[in-house]
């Protein structure tokens, strides 16, 4: 008789989600659904507000990566103003965004995912957390905290406060950066570089504990093989030189062999190449690459996708690491387990890039914003958030009052891939009527690898203890597992 396993809510991710696994008569997974069960409706509530409020208003969808929303929102507003942001304003925006990439990636890797890597996927949930890491590998835990603090401090120094700063505005940023602040950030970068390098080395060694370069003998080989290890398209922003760019650039799609499917797509034309599919059982939509249709046009975004789409990072240390990363696969790196690896490389890139940006003479200039009124009735802003590409699309009336908004968010782009990933990992690890904690942790971990922000994508908030139920179609619970 077929049964259903429900994992609700999922822990150690941002937001509120639920996984439903349907078992067939032989006790193997027949179907898997990743459901996002809450809705906040930011697009609707923005209607009637002044467009200048939009960056700050939209930043409220998330407390982890508000800066990316501020930037995508501000860029949409720049388009409404029809202005070019002054160089200083653009440099400061980019630096704030890189600070956010560092802090958010540090949170995802060290706080949320390292517990699985250090303690093992089968460790007791009570130990499998950042405090467990602190006990077992204090240096690593302190590195994670230090890195995150550094990223947060950049945001605070350049934008006024760590969460939901109001400094990123339509036309630029509100305040210039002093020489003292710039030098303070620059002085901390060498230490942060050492931290990232140390943990990249640890990560690579952890995957190859016996010193073999073959991942076949890695302690995580099963996870690498089954964590959304599948063919898909990848999407990300690249600059004119094909390099990594979190702030600007054009859209590129590559396929699973890293062959470019579409390149230099203008963010303003996103509706020509991205469409959204709706399913009744979840509030999270399913964006897809329009020319290939649904569901064939499945694509991934975020760190793994970005490293797959670019030609190079554009900074020396990160490019060295990228060449090693490329060696993991002959085409694109397909296993979503490697999102973790990609995250560390992106932190390295962010630190190097920060050093470059802060060393620009214009960084401490005084002209930080362009002044104008609404000149266009529509604006589209795109930026790379830690979790992937953000699209903010606003329409205003002639007085600059919001009439309509559409947001496509990183975790939305990844929705189809996450669903496929859960199916894959569940089929691999979940067997039989009796649920083991380690099985379910792996099902959750594949979601965690994407580091989705469900608060962003559909705007749910809060965390609750995990409860998993195995139920017969008639509703009888045959097994229940509760994590408090």
């Amino acid at each position, binding site marked *: 008789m077929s049964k259903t396993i429900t994992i609700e809510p999922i822990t150690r991710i941002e937001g509120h989600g639920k996984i439903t696994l349907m078992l067939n008569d032989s006790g193997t997974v027949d179907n898997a659904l990743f459901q996002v069960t809450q809705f906040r409706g930011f697009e609707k509530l923005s209607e*009637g*507000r*002044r467009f*200048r*409020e939009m*960056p*700050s*208003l939209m930043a*409220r969808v998330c407390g982890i990566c508000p800066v990316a929303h501020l930037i995508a929102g501000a860029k949409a507003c720049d388009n409404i103003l029809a202005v070019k942001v002054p160089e200083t304003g653009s440099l400061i925006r980019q630096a704030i965004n890189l600070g956010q990439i560092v802090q958010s990636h540090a949170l995802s890797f060290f706080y949320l995912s390292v517990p699985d890597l250090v303690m093992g996927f089968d460790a007791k949930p009570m130990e499998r957390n950042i405090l467990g890491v602190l006990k077992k590998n204090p240096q690593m835990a302190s590195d994670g905290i230090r890195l995150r603090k550094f990223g947060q401090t950049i945001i605070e120094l350049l934008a006024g406060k760590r969460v*939901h700063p*109001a400094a990123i*505005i*339509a036309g630029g940023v*509100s305040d210039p950066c002093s020489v003292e602040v710039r030098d303070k950030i620059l002085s901390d970068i060498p230490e942060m570089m050492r931290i990232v390098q140390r943990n990249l080395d640890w990560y690579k060694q952890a995957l190859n504990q016996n010193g073999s370069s073959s991942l076949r003998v890695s302690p995580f080989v099963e996870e690498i093989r089954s964590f959304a290890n599948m063919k898909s398209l990848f999407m990300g922003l690249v600059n004119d030189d094909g390099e990594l760019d979190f702030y600007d650039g054009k859209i590129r799609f590559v396929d699973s062999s890293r062959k470019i499917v579409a390149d230099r797509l203008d963010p303003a034309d996103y509706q020509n190449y991205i469409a959204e599919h709706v399913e009744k059982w979840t509030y999270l939509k399913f964006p897809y690459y329009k020319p290939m249709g649904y569901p064939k046009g499945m694509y991934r975004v975020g760190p793994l996708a970005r490293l797959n789409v670019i030609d190079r990072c554009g900074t020396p240390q990160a490019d060295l690491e990228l060449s090693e990363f490329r060696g993991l696969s002959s085409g694109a790196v397909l296993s979503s387990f490697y999102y973790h690896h990609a995250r560390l490389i992106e932190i390295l890139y962010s630190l190097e890039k920060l050093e470059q940006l802060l060393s620009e003479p214009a960084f401490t200039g005084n002209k930080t914003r362009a*002044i104008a*009124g609404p000149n266009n009735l529509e604006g589209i802003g795109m930026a790379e958030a830690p979790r992937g590409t953000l699209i903010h699309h606003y329409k205003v009336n002639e*007085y*600059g*009052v919001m009439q309509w908004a559409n947001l496509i968010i990183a975790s939305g782009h990844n929705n189809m891939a996450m669903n496929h990933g859960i199916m894959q990992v569940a089929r691999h690890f979940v067997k039989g009527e009796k649920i083991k904690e380690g099985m379910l942790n792996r099902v959750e971990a594949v979601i965690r690898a994407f580091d989705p922000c469900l608060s962003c994508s559909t705007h749910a908030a809060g965390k609750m203890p995990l409860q998993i139920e195995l139920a017969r179609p008639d509703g009888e619970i045959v097994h229940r597992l509760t994590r408090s």
Partner: protein
Amino acid sequence: MSSSVKIKTLTIDERQVGARENQTILEVARENGIKIPTLCYLKGLSPYGGCRMCIVEIAGSPKLLPSCMTTVEEGMVVSTNSDRIKKYRKNLLELYFSERNHVCSVCASNGYCELQSMAQKVEMSHVHFPYMYPHLDVDATHERYVLDHNRCIACTRCVRVCDEIEGAHTLDIKDRGIEVRIITDLDRPWGESETCTQCGKCVHVCPTGALIERGKSVGEMSKRKQLLPYLTKMREAHE
């Protein structure tokens, strides 16, 4: 001071104070360094008594009275900060917040708003009344200024300054109670107003983010609080 002016003696917060006979309790309290919170009152404009933040207790009177509208009496015993008054002020503020959409975090006046600072001053931590979430418009039709009804507390400072200082009387109010709205001319969009002189006094006397300059982003709309006292002083000097 003319010898015909009568002096009255009263007690405010257990302090003996002297006052001219036509003075209000609020004026006397402020002259003597006794702080009474206000939202609708603004020196230089006629008192209105609408916000009720300046309520005081007067011995022998069961009712709380607005100190901005109550003239002094000989022997009056006034209390400005009793527990009863504090409770009423906090409740009043909560009602203000629940009546419209005061979302400080995305407001242009965040950090410069008198309603916000008042809530902090009276230690308002929660709103115990259900929010009404009215659907209110933003009038952004004016070339230089924006009127956001969501942030308005109907203090009428803007109406009074427009009438009494600028002399334009562009702004007025319509309807009553929670339906009350600030209007321009005969309830036409502000941008179509033929009487507005674009002086901006209304913006700078507005205690909240209801009246702001166009182009201001979140937390950028600081008000020029010295504008009205300066104008008043200069007018008096010329009279």
